[in-house]
C-alpha cells in the first residue's frame, strides 16, 4: 500500500503538478496567439516579447507596491500589480496597433506583411525591455512560496516520496481555469464576443451586419493584454523572470495553438496540455515509479526514459511537424477557404 502511495505521490509531484502548471502558463500565451490569429488574421511573432513587456510593467509596479509596503501575504504582491499593469499593457498594445498594424489593415496588406511587422515590433520591444529593466533576471516573488513543502509532507504522511505544491503552481492552474472560463463566457454569451467571432468567421459579412471593426480590434488587444499580463506574471512567479526567456516559449506557444487549430480558443487550451505533457511524459524517468509498483526483482536498472531531456526542445518542433503533415487545421480548427 505504501508503495502505491509513494508511486502516486512521486508522479504527482514531479509530473502532474509541474505539467499542469506549465500547461496553464502556456495556455495564456497560446490563447493570445490564437485570438490575434483568429480576429486580426496574422501570426504575432511579437507575442512572447509582449508577455515579457507585460511582466516587466508588473515587476516595476510590484517593486513600487512593496516599497509602499502593500502586501496581501501569503499571496504574492504581484497579483495586485497585475490588475494595475493590465490597463498600461493594453494601452501599449493598442498604441502599437494604431501606429503600425492599423495602416497595414487600411491598405489590406497580406498576412505575411503583418508577420514581418510583428517581427519588427518584437525587435523593438526587445530593445525597450533591455533599456528599461536590463537583460538580467529579476526576482519579484514574495509571500508564501509553498503550500506544501517536501519536509512537511514527509512529516505528515511518513512517505518517502514527497508531494510538493508551490503557491505559484496552484495560482497558475486556478487562474488559468478562471480566465479560460471567463474568456469562453465572453466569446459565447456576450454581444461583443459574438461580434468578434462573427468578424473572425467572415469579415465582410460581419461588417455588412454593422459590426464596428475598430471596436473589435480594441477589444481583442485588451483581451490579449489581460492574457499576456497573467501568463507572463504567473510564469515569472513560478520560474523567475528573465526578460528573454519568453522568446523560448514562442515555439511551444505556437505549437500549442497550431495543435488545437489556430483561431480556436478551446484548441489553444487543449494544445497547451498536449505540448506540456508531451515534453514531460516523453522525457520523464519512470524508474522510480516502476520500482514502487513492480515486484522487487523486476525493478528496472536504467532510468526508463523514452527520450533524454536534452531532446525536450525538439518535441515542440516534432508536434508542430506532425500536426502540419497529418491534420494541418489542428484538432479544433476549421478548414479555411
Amino acid at each position, binding site marked *: 500500500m505504501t508503495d502505491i502511495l509513494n508511486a502516486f505521490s512521486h508522479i504527482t*509531484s*514531479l*509530473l502532474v503538478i*509541474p*505539467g499542469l502548471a*506549465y500547461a496553464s502558463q502556456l495556455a495564456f500565451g497560446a490563447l493570445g496567439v490564437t485570438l490575434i490569429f483568429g480576429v486580426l488574421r496574422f501570426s504575432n511573432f511579437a507575442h512572447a516579447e509582449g508577455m515579457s513587456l507585460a511582466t516587466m510593467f508588473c515587476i516595476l509596479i510590484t517593486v513600487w507596491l512593496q516599497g509602499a509596503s502593500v502586501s496581501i501575504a501569503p499571496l504574492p504582491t504581484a497579483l495586485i500589480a497585475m490588475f494595475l499593469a493590465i490597463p498600461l499593457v493594453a494601452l501599449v498594445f493598442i498604441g502599437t496597433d494604431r501606429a503600425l498594424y492599423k495602416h497595414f489593415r487600411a491598405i489590406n496588406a497580406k498576412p505575411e506583411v503583418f508577420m514581418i511587422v510583428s517581427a519588427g515590433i518584437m525587435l523593438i520591444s526587445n530593445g525597450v525591455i533591455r533599456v528599461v529593466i536590463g537583460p*538580467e*533576471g529579476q*526576482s519579484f516573488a514574495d509571500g508564501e512560496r*509553498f503550500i506544501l*513543502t*517536501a*519536509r512537511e*509532507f*514527509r512529516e505528515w504522511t511518513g512517505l518517502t516520496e*514527497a508531494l*510538493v505544491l*508551490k503557491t505559484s503552481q496552484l495560482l497558475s492552474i486556478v487562474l488559468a481555469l478562471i480566465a479560460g472560463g471567463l474568456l469562453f463566457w465572453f466569446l459565447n454569451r456576450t454581444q461583443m464576443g459574438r461580434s468578434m467571432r462573427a468578424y473572425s468567421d467572415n469579415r465582410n459579412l460581419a461588417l455588412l451586419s454593422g459590426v464596428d471593426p475598430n471596436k473589435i480590434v480594441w477589444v481583442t488587444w485588451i483581451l490579449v493584454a489581460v492574457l499576456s499580463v497573467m501568463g507572463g506574471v504567473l*510564469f515569472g512567479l513560478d*520560474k*523567475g523572470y*528573465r526578460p*528573454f*526567456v*519568453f522568446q*523560448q*516559449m514562442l515555439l*511551444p506557444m505556437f505549437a500549442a495553438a497550431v495543435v488545437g487549430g489556430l483561431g480556436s480558443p478551446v484548441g489553444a487550451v487543449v494544445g497547451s496540455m498536449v505540448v506540456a505533457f508531451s*515534453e*514531460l511524459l516523453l*522525457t*520523464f*524517468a*519512470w*524508474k*522510480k515509479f516502476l520500482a514502487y509498483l513492480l515486484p522487487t526483482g523486476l525493478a528496472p536498472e536504467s*532510468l526508463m*526514459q523514452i527520450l*533524454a*531531456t*536534452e531532446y*525536450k*526542445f525538439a518535441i515542440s518542433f516534432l508536434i508542430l511537424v506532425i500536426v502540419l503533415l497529418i491534420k494541418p487545421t489542428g484538432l479544433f480548427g476549421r478548414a479555411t477557404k
Partner: protein
Amino acid sequence: MKKPMLPLLLGTTVMLANPAMAEDIKLGVLFGFTGPIESLTPPMAGAAELATKEVNDSGLLLDGSTVVLVQADSTCIDSGAATAAAERLVTSDKVAAIVGADCSGVTTAVLNNVAVPNDILMISPSATSPALAADTDNGLFFRTAPSDARQGELLALVLIERDIKTVAVSYTNNDYGKGFADAFTAAYEEAGGTATLVSPHDDGKADYSAEVSALSVAGGEVLVVLGYADQGGFGIMQGALDSGTFDTFAGGDGMHSKILIERLGDDLNVFGTVPWSVGLGAEKFDEYAAAAGKESDSSFVRETYDATALILLAMQKAGSAENAAGSVTDVANAPGEKIYPGELAKGLQILKDGGEIDYVGASDVELIGTGESAGSYREFENRDGSFETVRMLLAE
C-alpha cells in the same frame, strides 16, 4: 590627433619594409581586439607591454636585444580571421613567438594551422578548453590559464574528501560545460564515486521540470551543477530544491555567484571550486601594475603578463629567440630561484649566468601535463550567506 599618427604610420611602414635587425625580437600579441571579449583585451595587451618594457629596460635579454610587440586581432570567434592574422604575424612580421590566442576555438585553429607548421611557440593566457590538452602541438603550445579539466579533477577530489560517493550531474550544454563534466565524471569515478546521471541542460529555457525530475529519479547525495548561476544552473538548483529531492549542491566557477544566495536563501548548502589567485605573486603584481599605471584586476591580465614573461625568459634560457619552446617548462617550474612580478631582470641575469629559475609570476605559474598551468583554486562553501574559503587547492 592627426600629427602623432604620421610618425606612427611611418614607423609601421619601416618596420614592415625592413627585415628585423639582428637584435630586434618581435613578439606577436594575438587577442580579440574586436568581438565578444573586446572589453577584456586592452588590459591584457597592457600586461604584455608591461612585461616587455621590463625586459627591454633591463637590457639583459640575449645580449641586449629589444623586444617589439606586434598586435593582431583574433576576433575570439572567427577562426578564419584569426588564422589569417596569425599567418600575417608569422610570414610578414616574422614574429619569433605568439602571446595568444585568447579564446579556445581560435587558439586551436591558429595552433594547428599556423604555429605547428611554422614551428612557432605559442602561450595562451586564456584558452581553458580541455580539448587543447591533446598532445598534438609538438611541444609548441602552453597556457598560463588552467584547463577546465583541472577544475573537474579538483571538484571530484573535494567531493571524495567530503565522503560523498554518489552524485547526479547537470551541466550547461556548451564546450565549457561538456568539458568540465567529462573531466569531473572521469576523475570522480576513478576515485570510487558514482555519477548516477550526467545530463546537459540548455541555458535560457522556459521550463526545467523535465531535467529536474530525471535528476531526482537518478538520485545521489549531492547534485553537481556545472553551469551558470544566472542561467540554467540556477533553474536546475531551484527546481531541485523545490521538489525536495536534493538539498546539497556542488558547483564550479560558473556557479560561484552571490546571485545564488540572494535568490535561494542564506541557508543554501552549496560548495565547490573556483580559480583563485592568492599569495605573494598576485600581491606583488597588483603593486607593480599599479605603479606602472596598468590595470591588474581585470580577467586574464595576470596570466598575460606571465605568458609574455615566460616566452622571454625561455628565449634567454635557450640562448636564441627561435628555439625557446623547449625551455618554457624549465623556467616555469622548479628547481631554481623563485621569480615574482617585477623581478624579470633578476631572472634574466640568473639565466645569463647559467643558473636555474622557477618562475612564479602573478598567477603562481606551475606547468603540468602537456603544458598548462596547474592554477590555484579555492574550495568555497556557503556560510551564513557568503562564500567562504574552506582551503586553497594548489598545485602539488
